[in-house]
């Protein structure tokens, strides 16, 4: 894993990383990938992936409203709101 690889993954994960820290991330990620590569030694050709340890499926419930509207409470936690909306930097260009 080189600096370019770290920048690409950090970009995919939407994480800003300081340039100074990239060598350390690269070194540690390389070790992690070496660890993960130990998996390649196992023959899994006869094996299905296990995604749920108890192998049960997600339950379904009736499509009914179960939560009350708490928008005002939730918006007290937001960094910036206005008239019930969450504010972010402008994304649509002005004419």
């Amino acid at each position, binding site marked *: 894993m080189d600096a370019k690889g770290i920048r690409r993954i950090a970009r995919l994960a939407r994480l800003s990383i300081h340039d100074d820290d990239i060598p350390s991330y690269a070194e540690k990620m390389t070790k992690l990938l070496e660890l993960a590569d130990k998996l390649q030694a196992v023959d899994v050709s006869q094996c299905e992936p*296990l995604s749920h340890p*108890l192998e049960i499926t997600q339950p379904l419930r009736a499509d009914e409203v179960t939560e009350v509207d708490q928008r005002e409470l939730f918006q007290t*936690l937001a960094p910036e709101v206005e008239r019930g909306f969450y504010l972010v930097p402008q994304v649509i260009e002005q004419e």
Partner: protein
Amino acid sequence: MSMHNDTLKQLSDKLANKDISSVELTQHCIDRVNRYDDKLNTFITLDEEFALAQAKAADARIAKGEANAMTGLPIAQKDIFCAKGMKTTCASKMLDNFIAPYDATLITQFNNAGCVLFGKTNMDEFAMGSSNENSFYGDCQNPWDLDCVPGGSSGGSASAVAARLVPASTGTDTGGSIRQPAAFCGITGLKPTYGRVSRYGMIAFASSLDQAGPMAQTAEDAAMMMNVMAGFDPKDSTSVNRPVEDFTAKLNHPLKGLTIGLPKEYFVEALNPEIARVLHEAAKVLESLGVTLKDMSLPHTDMGIPVYYVIGPAECSSNLSRFDGVRYGYRCENPVDLDDLYCRSRGEGFGPEVKRRIMMGTYALSSGFYDAYYTKAQKVRRMMKQDFVEAFKTVDYILCPSTPSTAFREGEKCDDPISMYLADVFTVAANMAGLPALSMPAGFVKGLPVGAQLIGNYFDEAGMLNVAHQYQQATDWHTKIPEMFL
């Protein structure tokens, strides 16, 4: 007053007999935190007024004869559980300003039982770590040696109980985060079967692995806590809809006729020989109680860490995508555009270990690598589970060490993530298979506690607690308290 030397069970009896009040007990715990916690840093938040108000309400309930065995007992909660109106941080800068708008089901369950919510404990950021050195609120210390780590990620919960600042606490366990700190601090910690305890309101790390459980002085106390915590919750889609038994009912069953397996893959060179000696002594105690010991094998044990460090990061990279600086949590200063807002809020809000795991997971899930890493890890995971399914055809429980070493020194493993990850080498397998497992104190090596791990079959927590309780009737390791905190 020596209330802090009492177990939950003893305190419960004293409350019922009105020998003590919940207000007295809660104040005593507050006094101990104020006296000792500058040495340990086990709490992120402790709202004394809130705790005392709950204690007062518990006393009223006891006076009216409406109490149960847990009413009035102070329980510290890992700071991963949302508690309404209370700061809930997951030990991250990302959530340093987050006041939870609702209660986790687990918090509601303890509230309904009349327990006192005794503060929120320190932990590794987003439960990622094995030493509590990844907390935004600073390292937490091991009461047996202040230069050593308490383990992690539930380090504050373990340290607080070991130093008897609080009689019991909760933790969460994704790869060993209850059992490893329980072992390092000399307490009893149980990771229940996957799906046994609701995760609603518990901040998610790796959804196919996470499970909450009790951290206590004894197996009996853990059983009392399980009676509060376990059960189906329609709000958690991974919660298992299955009746819950009384976890204390079987505690006194004789162990005669049980078979306990000793897996050879856990007694290997990587294991400190002194810990191996402690484990063999624990096995002998169980044998003297009527258990038959059996050598056995779990062939894919060495794949546990590689599987865990693909599946855990992959699922965390997905779960932690919710932290975007828009709806709650940390937001960077003066973002120039939306993309800058996402990247810098996340880059500045998460600590280095969390970022590393998000990146590892992002890589494992990225186009072209998904099958080679995530799907492959899930397949090897099935083989690990199959090892246990085979094993439980011939043994009732598995006994093995909880950790390969005793508590290590602060800073010792910080620069090498792989050596840190190997601290979980004996605990991850139970998470892979979704099985219940506990760690109980079994002795000391050079003054530091050693944990013995019991792994049981699905939903057999009560049986495991029976074995641990009988072991604790025959030994006194669980009663030891570090001298500085007597």
